[in-house]
C-alpha cells in the first residue's frame, strides 16, 4: 500500500507542479525501493529501541527522585517538630522536654531516614543530593540543637553518622551525611540557638544564654575558615552573614543584661513571677 501511494504522489506531483522542469525521473526499481524502505524501517526501529531504554531509565530515575524528595520532606517536617519541642524548654521542665525531643529525633531516624537510605545506594548518594539535602540539613539542625541543650557540646558529623549506621541493613551502604550538608545544617543551628538565647534571658537564665553566646561565636569562627573551600559556597556565604547577625543579637542581649542588671532580670525564686516579657504574672 505504501508503494501505491508513492506512485500516486508522483502522479499528483506531475499534475500539480507549477512548472515542469525537464528532468529525468529517477525511476527506482521496485526492489530498490523495498530495500530502501527496509533500511529506513530498521533505522527507525533501532532508534525506537534505543529510546525505549532511555525512557525506562528516565522513568525509573525520576520516580526514585520523587520518593527521595518525599522522604526528605518528611524528615524536614519532623525535624522541625523536634526543634520546636526543644524550644519549649524552661528551667522547670528540661528533662521531660529533652526526653521527648530525643525520642522524636529517634523516630525521624527510624521511620524516615531508613526510607532515604534504601533509595540512595551507590552513585545516587551524590546524584540525588539536591533532592534530599534540605531534609538532611534540617535533621542536622535538630540533632545539634538537641545535643547542645542536653550536654552543651557540639554533635559532630561523626557522632551523627554513627547514629545512622545501625539503621541500615548490613547489606546496604549506611547513609552517611556528607560534610556539605552538615555544615549547612550547622549554619541554621545558630539561628535557633539565637532564639533560645533570647528566650532564656527573658526567663532569667543568663548563664545558658552566655554559654550559647560562646558556642555560637566558636562555630562562627571555625566555619569562617571552612566555608570558602566548599563546593558551591554561595549558599553558605549568605548563611554566614545571617550567622554573624545571630551572634551579634545574642551578644547584644547579653550586653543588655550585663549593663541593666537586676532592673532587667526578673526576680528568681520558686514563687517568682515570670518575666513581664512573657506576659504571665504571679504577683502576690
Amino acid at each position, binding site marked *: 500500500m*505504501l508503494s501505491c*501511494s508513492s506512485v500516486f*504522489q508522483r502522479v499528483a*506531483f506531475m499534475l500539480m*507542479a*507549477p*512548472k*515542469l*522542469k525537464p528532468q529525468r*525521473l*529517477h*525511476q*527506482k526499481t521496485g526492489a530498490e*525501493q523495498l530495500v530502501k*524502505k527496509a533500511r*529506513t*524501517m530498521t*533505522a*527507525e526501529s533501532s*532508534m525506537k529501541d*534505543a*529510546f525505549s531504554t*532511555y*525512557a525506562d531509565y*528516565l*522513568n525509573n530515575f*525520576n520516580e526514585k527522585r520523587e520518593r527521595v524528595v518525599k522522604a526528605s520532606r518528611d524528615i524536614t517536617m519532623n525535624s522541625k517538630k523536634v526543634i520546636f519541642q526543644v524550644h519549649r524548654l524552661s*528551667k522547670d521542665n528540661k528533662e521531660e522536654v529533652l526526653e521527648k525531643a530525643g525520642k522524636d529525633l529517634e523516630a525521624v531516624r527510624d521511620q524516615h531516614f531508613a526510607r532515604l537510605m534504601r533509595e540512595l545506594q*551507590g*552513585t545516587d*548518594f*551524590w546524584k540525588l*543530593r539536591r533532592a534530599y539535602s534540605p531534609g538532611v540539613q534540617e535533621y542536622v539542625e535538630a540533632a545539634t540543637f538537641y545535643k547542645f*541543650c542536653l*550536654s*552543651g*557540646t557540639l554533635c559532630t558529623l561523626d557522632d551523627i553518622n554513627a547514629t545512622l549506621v545501625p539503621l541500615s541493613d548490613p547489606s546496604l551502604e549506611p547513609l552517611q551525611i556528607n560534610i556539605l550538608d552538615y*555544615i549547612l545544617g550547622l549554619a541554621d543551628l545558630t539561628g535557633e540557638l539565637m532564639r533560645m538565647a533570647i528566650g532564656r534571658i527573658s526567663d*532569667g537564665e*543568663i*548563664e*545558658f544564654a*552566655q*554559654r550559647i553566646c*560562646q*558556642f555560637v561565636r*566558636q562555630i562562627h569562627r*571555625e566555619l569562617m*575558615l*571552612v566555608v570558602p*573551600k*566548599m*563546593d558551591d559556597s554561595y549558599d553558605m556565604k549568605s548563611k554566614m552573614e545571617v550567622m554573624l547577625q545571630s551572634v551579634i543579637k545574642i551578644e547584644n542581649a*547579653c550586653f543588655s*543584661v*550585663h*549593663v541593666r*542588671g*537586676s532592673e532587667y532580670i526578673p526576680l*528568681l525564686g520558686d514563687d517568682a513571677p515570670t518575666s513581664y516579657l512573657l506576659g504571665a504574672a504571679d504577683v502576690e
Partner: protein
Amino acid sequence: MMSSAFRNAHLTASRLINPKPFSSSSILHFLPLCSGDASPRRSNPLRHRNSVSPSSSFPFCSISSFCIPMAGGDGQGSHSLEKQFDSFRVQLEESAALREQIRAVVMEIESATRLIQANLLLVHQSRPIPEVIEKSKEKINDLKKFYGRLAEILRECPGQYYRYHGDWRSETQAVVSQLAFMHWLETGTLLVHTEAEEKLGLNSLEFGLETEDYLTGICFMSNDLPRYVVNRVTAGDYDCPRKVMNFLTDLHAAFRMLNLRNDFLRKKFDSMKYDLRRVEEVYYDVKIRGLISGGDIPGVQVTQGQS
C-alpha cells in the same frame, strides 16, 4: 561574705574540671564582655546570683535552678570540635584541589571540541564529507585521552562522579552533539548512547556518559541540521532535505517516547520541533519547484501534515 565563698568554690571546682582555666579553646572561657572586674553598678545581693561575672558562671556552682550538665572533659569537648573543623578544612581543600585538576582537563576537552566543531563546519561550505570526517576522527582520539584523564582523577574518590559532574556536563553535551553530527554525516543514522560511550572510551561502570547529557547533546545536534540543509540546497544537493527530514522526524518521534521533567533537556527537546518544521519547509520549497530528483521514500508519506 557569700560572694567570696562562692568565688572560692568556683575556683576550686574549675581547677578540678578544667586543668587549663585560661585555655582559649575552653568553652567556658569568658571574654571581656563578661569581665567581673568592673564593679557592679548596683550592689544588689540578687545580682550576684545572676551576675555575669565569671565567678558565678560555672554551672556546677550555679545557684540558678537551670543547669547544663558538664561532662567531665569539656575541654575535650571543644577540642573535638576544633579537631572536627580542622579535618573539614583538610577534606574540603582536597576536594577543591581535585576540582582544579578536573577544570584543567575540562578546558582541554572544550578546546578539542571547538577544533572538531570548526572542522565540521566545513560541510556547510561543501567540503567533501569523508575528508572532513577523517580530520575530525583524529581529534576524537584526543578527546578519548582527556576523558581517560578525568576517569583517572576520579578514581581517587570513588563514587563521587556526580559530585563533580556539573564541571563537565555542558562540555560533554557539546562533545556528543559534534560526534552525533559526524556520525550522521557518515552513516545517515543516529549515534546511540552506547556507541557514543564507546567512541569516547568511556564505560558506565567507572566513568560513563550520563544518559541525560547524551540526550541533550542529540538535541543540540538537531539544532544544527536546518542550517546544514539550507546550505546544501544552495549548493545544489536537493536530496538532502528529504534525508534530513526523515531522520529528524524519526528522531522527534523517538524523543516523544520519553517522559521528561520541566528541565533543561525538556527545553532543548521543545526546540527540536522548530528544527523539524524548518527542515520540512525547505523540503517543501525544493519539492514544489520540482528540484527533487524523485524516488520518494515511503516514509515521506507519513510525515505529510505532521507538525
